[in-house]
């Protein structure tokens, strides 16, 4: 593993080479690849860097910057394990890719394919559900919606989002 950067460069995000992306005044869509993501089981919110989403009772998703070391598991997993003793931690960084939706039409766009009431989703909270036939986690930050989707579904969802965006762009 002499060439660390080289190995990281060999990675391919699910939406690489698909020309996915929408940029318009009211709506933009982009893939945020290679985020470090770990699931944590803990009764209390876990101590962790980055965004911490509640997925369900005693169930959390941590979203932090991409790793800089090639490894079987992202370093964030051990970091969270150490900070939350006794709490099961799973690396799911390659289990989901992240699609960021911003703009005034962001919430309405997803309402074309998601039955969950996202208009009342507070900043800092996430929901799990079905978006256009794909199981997703949708979290709201101060200025964006983050969709975490399985790589196998990413191209389908990207195609669906791109089509859904037509009336808004």
């Amino acid at each position: 593993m002499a060439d660390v950067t080289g190995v990281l460069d060999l990675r391919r995000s699910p939406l690489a080479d698909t020309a996915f992306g929408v940029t318009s005044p009211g709506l933009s869509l982009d893939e945020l690849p290679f985020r470090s993501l770990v699931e944590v089981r803990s009764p209390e919110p876990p101590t962790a860097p980055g965004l911490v989403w509640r997925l369900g009772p005693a169930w959390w998703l941590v979203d932090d910057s991409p790793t800089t070391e090639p490894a079987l598991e992202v370093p964030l997993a051990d970091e969270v394990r150490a900070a939350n003793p006794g709490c099961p931690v799973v690396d799911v960084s390659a289990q989901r890719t992240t699609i960021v939706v911003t703009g005034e039409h962001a919430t309405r766009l997803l309402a074309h394919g998601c039955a969950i009431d996202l208009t009342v989703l507070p900043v800092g909270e996430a929901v799990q559900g079905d978006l256009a036939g794909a199981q997703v986690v949708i979290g709201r930050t101060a200025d964006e919606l983050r969709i975490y989707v399985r790589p196998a579904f990413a191209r389908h969802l990207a195609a669906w989002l791109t089509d859904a965006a037509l009336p808004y762009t």
Partner: protein
Amino acid sequence: MARRLPTGGSRIDRSRPVTITVDGETVEAYAGDTLASALLAADRLLVSRGIYSGRPRGVIGVGVEESNAYVQVLDDGHVDRGGDQGGGGGEPMVAATTLEVADGLAVERIAGRGWLSTDVDHRRYDTLTTHCEVAVVGGGLAGLRAAVAAQAPGVRVLLLDDGPVLGGAAADLPAGSPAGLELEALLGELTCEVLVRTTVTGSHGHGRLVAVERGRRLHHVQAARIVLATGAQERPMVFEDDDRPGIMLACAAADYVSRYGVLPGERAVVWTAHDAGIHAALELAAAGTELAAVLDVRGSMAPELAGALDALGVPVHLGAEVTGTDGSDDETGRLVRVHTSAGSWDADLLAVSGGSNPAVQLFSHPGGRTRWSDEVAGFVPDTPAPGQAGRESVVGAAAGETATIPGWREQLTPPAAWFRSSVGDPERVFVDPHRDATLHDLRRAHAAGLSSVEHVKRFTTVGTGADQGRGFGVLTVGILAQELGRPVGEVGTTTYRPPYLPLSFGLLAGRNRGVLSDPVRVSQVHDRVAHAPMENVGQWKRPWFFPTADETGPGAMDAAVAREVAAVRTGVGMMDASTLGKILLQGADVGVLLDRVYTNLFSTLKVGKVRYGVMCGPDGMVIDDGTTARLSETAWLMSTTTGNAASVYDALEEWHQTEWPELDVTITSVTDQWSVVAVAGPSSRFVISALAPDLDVSAEAFAFMEWREAVVAGIPARVMRVSFSGELAFEVNVPSWWGAALWDAVAEAGEPWGITPYGTETMHVLRAEKGFPIVGQDTDGTVTPHDLGMSWAVSRKKPDFIGKRSLARDDAQRPDRRHLVGLVPVDGRTRIVEGAQLVAHGADLTAFPVAMAGHVTSAYPVGHDGQPFALALLDGGRDRLGEVLDAVDDLVPLAVRVTGPVSYDPEGARRDG
């Protein structure tokens, strides 16, 4: 526009002329017209014909209650709206009274039945979910009042109206009238979200409404509270020859004046059973229609109304009824003369109004009960559906209120419940013109012994036409009650079910068509193998086989698979195994859980080892199989079949959450976390050794059913020695973002050994020769592990596991259960057909029923010995080895010999290379 009045028409814009085409002929109209108003304005009265009788028919109503005027839309003229690609737009059976005109609109008149266009529908349909605290259905004054009253900070109110503008009847009244002033004030206060041209077609309980906007967008509305302000619909009365063009609902006729500036007749007879009909007569007279006579079925008339008619010099006949009509001799058959109990008159308009039906359909959809009200002379909401109580209210005319709109068609005298003339030929009294059903048909139903309105509906087809009884449904109930001699309320209405208005298939499909019709799942290796023909496995696309440039035509698959099989048996092959389900289980009690969900023992598995397991349902039947690796003392990685990943995950969660919550286990799906490339064949060790120089791949250091962490081609990986082919094999697992890079590296490193990519078909051949079953192909939910010959995988020591009790049942131990066996053709060359039934050799296939002994579950044209072979489930199969049977496909028998399921390397000598 012969009948267009010089002024008036609240809904039309005279500055925007519109040209439409009817049966190829041009018709001029204005923006805001409906097709019906445009046709009436053009004095084109013949709009359709009876579906069976062929009788000429015209426009009856002014909205969704229309029962006659259905047309075939050839092009809806709405090209390029809302992102459409444009073009086409054919639609069968569209009510002329609700079809808004637009330039380019082209329609054809039909006789009661349209046709589905065979053109591709390029229009864009979509779906939108809206959540709100209050949904108000209907934007008339009652709905507007409710919406404005509900508006508050934090309360999302959604107001839906099927018309082009809000206000309902008030929008057609003068701006300075009390209703017009109130409308202006309400619109000024209205701040909530409004959807116009949006019809709520279903109320599905628990606050869920479905609505359609302009035919193009399907709205799912989830509301905490629902206000139904759906108004009322005018009810006709029937008599002999009641279906001629020129016979209309009275209020509808007056509405054509106020909304569209169209005068529906020069000389009219008006027949009514309630005051609104008299108001309508006065409105028509004010617009220029000469009233030949006004008839009221009731015995008295309010002095105000009587005085107004008297002032116009109109003869009024109380307690009178229409008894018949004459039509013109030309093809339009239009009304020329009206016969009544009080005399006959020449007229080109007969305006009839039998009363008002509160629009209770949405109230009834989820199970709301209606009752007959004599005060209203109609069915009104009574008991809301259990799930709607407290969250639903009905207001305005829909609730039976008669004074919702101040100063408009006021009710001064109670209405009469009157449905038909007392005389006339029953075969010419049409009670559902769209179905051409008559009073005679109703009487036949009655004579046949039918008394339930539901039975009568099905016997006569009354109410099953395009209007679904909106026009004549309650009228039919009234007539049926008369025939039966029972109160109307006791007879009751038919059940109102969604959708209130027809929904097109295109609308329901929405954007879920073409590539978006169902998600396509692809692995992160997909782009490297995408040139191969694909097999659909659940939602996944998996490479089926990899034909070379020489392997073309109908034999391509057989040739490619034979080559791929040979490569794995004699050299090395590689395949993308990423789609298999992967579930990470963590916790101190994972071993306990696995001992319960697998039939064999898992808790004894040591870290670094992998074990194969079979899962059964509580019925003892196999539901899945796969391997599970122990990663650490507390972490285990389970693999499932590609198709069952989600159901196994769900089953694990369900057992854990509902039955064994005390177990320290957490379960996480990691199917997409890992890309897996399987390297299989006697040369696979060389390839892995070249890729992972630091990994000792010798059989001694890295045994079958073990896993190791290693760096493979520079990529951090977990390598497992598992085999689905019987050959020496390694499965390399890497975080999925390295999947494509791993594939490239394996292909490159394997080149010296001629590494051959193989697909699912070769995988199936390889495993079938080893007798490895595929759950779902060789099993069908009725197969136990014992039936598969896998008793070795069923623990006799464990106190319990899911399915253990069922496997102990006598039936699960019958010796004649269907067992998994192998088959070869007796002639050594004819292909066995998958799905073929197994019968006794030489059985007479014409002597039904032929006794079936089993069926072929998997069949392949070529095995390692060059001959076709198959797997089958056969009654008592294990005891019938060597027996000859017939495998019957499409009545063609093929003699096959029963063998053991394992046809290749039964000793398992090849797995270590």
